[in-house]
């Protein structure tokens, strides 16, 4: 089975559960192959957990869910060293982060301290507890969710922390026909449990390596950098996209090209990804509107910027 059909099988497998959201599924797969982490910003009950769960099931890898609450401590995520009576030594009890796919639910409800312990682990793919370092499994992907509608008792992630996520997506409500299909399903079983693995972990790692080999023409590199530097110049944006943001877009574009069955990038890959990869990395000038509105607004600003940058011929 070649890589295209493998990716296709993975997508259709997930789409058996997540109905009517092909682009969200596509972005999830892109984040996986680009070795990135995904932030889903949406209201509860539109299938965030199910998405993460079905991805994990399709890969046949370990999956953990951490419900973030205001009293969650870093050790609840990373693990803790406990004294072992018989061996007379400290023994490390790994926390829920030691899984291939980790769903961090409602990440904005916990304290900055706990948030940053998760984000450090995401960045370095390893965990340090009591001056010892434990590597996280490979591949490792965090799917975090946050609810933009809540205000009370939340600690919104600052943009600098959001930078750690490859992209931020919104799922949105399904349309009527798709919602009807969801309701038609037998409710006794969790829908994701029906899924069988279609990719082995080794195949995932191989595809992640393939992403590196996707060709990105020099002119597209310039196009990408032009978009990034435009965000730094725009009058609407207080803080533009960092170099890490440019790297993220570069990598995501390559992964998207692979997912779309090409070994080279097109301008479309960059243009389609820019709102999802860049919007959560910029700070807009202070203005009216709720947080939810702000993130939609940022996506629109990025879209306008991308539209204004000429595509290389």
């Amino acid at each position: 089975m070649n890589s295209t059909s493998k990716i296709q099988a993975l997508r259709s497998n997930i789409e058996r559960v997540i109905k009517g959201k092909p682009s969200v599924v596509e972005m999830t797969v892109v984040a996986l192959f680009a070795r990135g982490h995904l932030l889903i910003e949406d209201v509860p009950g539109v299938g965030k957990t199910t998405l993460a769960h079905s991805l994990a099931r399709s890969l046949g890898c370990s999956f953990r869910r951490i419900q973030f609450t205001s009293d969650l401590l870093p050790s609840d995520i990373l693990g803790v060293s406990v004294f072992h009576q018989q061996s007379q030594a400290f023994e490390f009890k790994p926390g829920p982060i030691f899984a291939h796919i980790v769903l961090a639910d409602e990440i904005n409800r916990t304290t900055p301290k706990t948030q940053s312990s998760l984000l450090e682990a995401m960045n370095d793919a390893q965990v340090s507890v009591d001056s010892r370092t434990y590597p996280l499994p490979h591949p490792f992907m965090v799917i975090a969710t946050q609810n933009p509608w809540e205000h009370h008792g939340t600690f919104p992630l600052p943009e600098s922390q959001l930078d750690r996520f490859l992209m931020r997506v919104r799922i949105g409500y399904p349309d009527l026909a798709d919602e009807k299909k969801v309701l038609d399903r037998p409710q006794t079983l969790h829908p994701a449990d029906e899924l069988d693995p279609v990719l082995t972990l080794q195949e995932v790692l191989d595809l992640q390596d393939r992403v590196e080999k996707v060709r990105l023409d020099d002119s597209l590199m310039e196009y990408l950098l032009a978009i990034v530097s435009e965000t730094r110049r725009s009058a609407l944006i207080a803080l533009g996209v960092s170099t890490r943001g440019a790297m993220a877009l570069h990598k995501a574009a390559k992964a998207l090209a692979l997912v779309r069955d090409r070994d080279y990038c097109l301008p479309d890959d960059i243009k389609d990804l820019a709102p999802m990869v860049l919007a959560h990395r910029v700070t807009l000038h202070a203005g009216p509107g709720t947080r939810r509105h702000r993130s939609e607004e940022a996506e629109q600003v990025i879209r306008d910027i991308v539209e204004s940058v000429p595509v290389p011929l």
Partner: protein
Amino acid sequence: MTLERAFHFCSLLLAAVAFTGLVLTGEIPSGLAVLGLAALAVTIARTIGWGGDRLVDRLVGLPTSVWTALLVAAFVSFGIDLLLISRDILPAAVHFLILLMVVKLFHLRHRKDFLQLYAISLSELLATAALTVDLWYAGVFVAYVFAAIWTLILYHLRNESEEAHKGPSPIARPVTRQFFWTTNGIAVGSFCLTLVIFFLIPRIGTGFFQKNRTELIRTSGFSEKVDLGVIGAVKLDPTVVMRIEFPDVRGPVQNALYFRGAAYDTYDGRSWGNRSATRRTLERTPDGVFLVSTPQAAAAAESGGLRQEILIEALDTTVLFGASFVESIKGGFQIVQVDGVGGLYLPFPTSARFQYSVRSVPDRLREPDRTTESVSYPDLIRQRFLQLPDVGSRVGALAREVAGDARTPYERARAVERHLQQKYQYSLDVSTAVSASPVEDFLFTRKTGYCEHYATAMVVMLRTLGIPARLVTGFLPGVWNDFGNYYSVRQQDAHAWVEVYFPGSGWVTFDPTPSVPSAAPSLFSRVGKVVDSIRLKWDRYVVQYSFRDQMAAAKSLREGGEKVRTEVSGLLSALTRGLASAKAWLAGSARAYGWILVGGLAAGALVVGLVLVWRGRGGGARQADPRTARQVAAIQLYERMLRILEAQGLLKSPGATPLEFARQVARERGEAARYVEPLTGLYCRVRFGQAPFSSDDDRQARELLAGLQAARR
């Protein structure tokens, strides 16, 4: 290897090549050589990533002020070196260069540091050229050209990418095989171009710093006074002292050759010397030829003599060698002197090898001298060449016994020569301790010896018989090199022989030494011959290449041109007389600009070829125009499609991607979509995917464009 690392590596390699050349000259103090080599080794190892040596990292991390201080210290040491130690600008400057290089190796941070390192390496290469004329310099030079081309191309790429990104940005692109071969192709091309320039640019003289530091070869047997036994000491020394070509003869010369150096008239029982050391300066003709005897004799030599081209190494003697007997001599010198016994000398020793040509007329015994029994010698000859030291009467008795019933002086001389050849053993195993009377020792006690003993014994014996004779030292021809068609003469070919005077014929060569069988040629000696002939050519056509050679080359080129021209003109006149005026014009311009034209055309063709290779490969030119030919073709195709659609009222906004625009076309003008979609697909594949753009694709694209054009509403 990424470009950035390759750039670092090549910069260090360039310095390493230049420094290796400097070390090979052997003129560098070993301390400095070790310092430089160690610095190069650790920095190169660090660049390749072999040794993450902490000490080197710390050295590299030292602040700029420390390095500046070190530079100042190096400069001060240069002053001290110049004034007190070396006392010469060239070695002091070379030592300073090495210190500079070491400092720079550890302090490569900015662009200017690299440029300075290149300047240092170039200076080292130039200094090497001033310090050596050996063949290995060619290898160092070629290696340097290659390394320099790599380095400069990488430097340029790095510069461009830094400027493109407004600030330092490491170029992480890997070095491809294509890049490697392209740069090597350029290096070969520029090397050929350099060769053309080397042979075309007029020579003005020797280099400014060309101070020849070749060691003088110590010779024996050509000084004012020659102790008996000195030649034996060099009979095992294989050092090449000269190479002799015969321009008029193909293959080795058949008759016995003696390359005459010095001659001696006075023997004091232990050593040879000359009674009168006065030397006469030879007359120089307007063409720079020195005539040894009368112009008439020289004219005779011009027609029948043996012409030799002699390339002589830097010897510690001023003697000029030539086959017996030299009639005229020509070379790059102003004065040639001759002494009373026919030895030719320069007024002062030269410090470099040099070349000269000689014409010789072999000695010939005239018939009267062969048969005349009673001979009267001129007084001058009798005074000088019948002198005898205090040798015992036994020598005279032996001479008379050997001469026996021979009646003519010639027969007596031959008898003595034959006697020595047959009755005595040739051996180099003779104690070097000079005995009280070496001649008697040789003749009666040991009966073994080598050329000097034979020759001295013969001279003494002839003189006791009243026949004037003298001792001559020089060289035997040595080994014939059939790859280069020349004789290579070594120290071990040094020889001594005898010249006997006959009133009608002058001096005639006799050699009482029995011939020694030469070793059979082995494979090794054949390889040695090839190497030696390459070395001779290197010296002849590179080191000694002069304005004279250029003129000769230009002349031969012009002669060739003239020949072609006459042939062409003959053909033309045979064809038609009406074109006569055009022909004259053609011939005139060919005469005026012939070889400039040929050289210019060759250089131009080379440059055009290089540019074509460069563009065709596309690898090296990526920074200038990053797009390959087929990408450009795809862009042109797409632009044509856009123009056609624009004419039909469909305009692509600059921010729209190709696929978005294709969707827009499908939405707004469904019937055009079946042309636009495949065209867009092809464009995307070739433009961004570097897919091949076959002639089939091209034909299909043209058909689609034509269809689109025709699908106008």
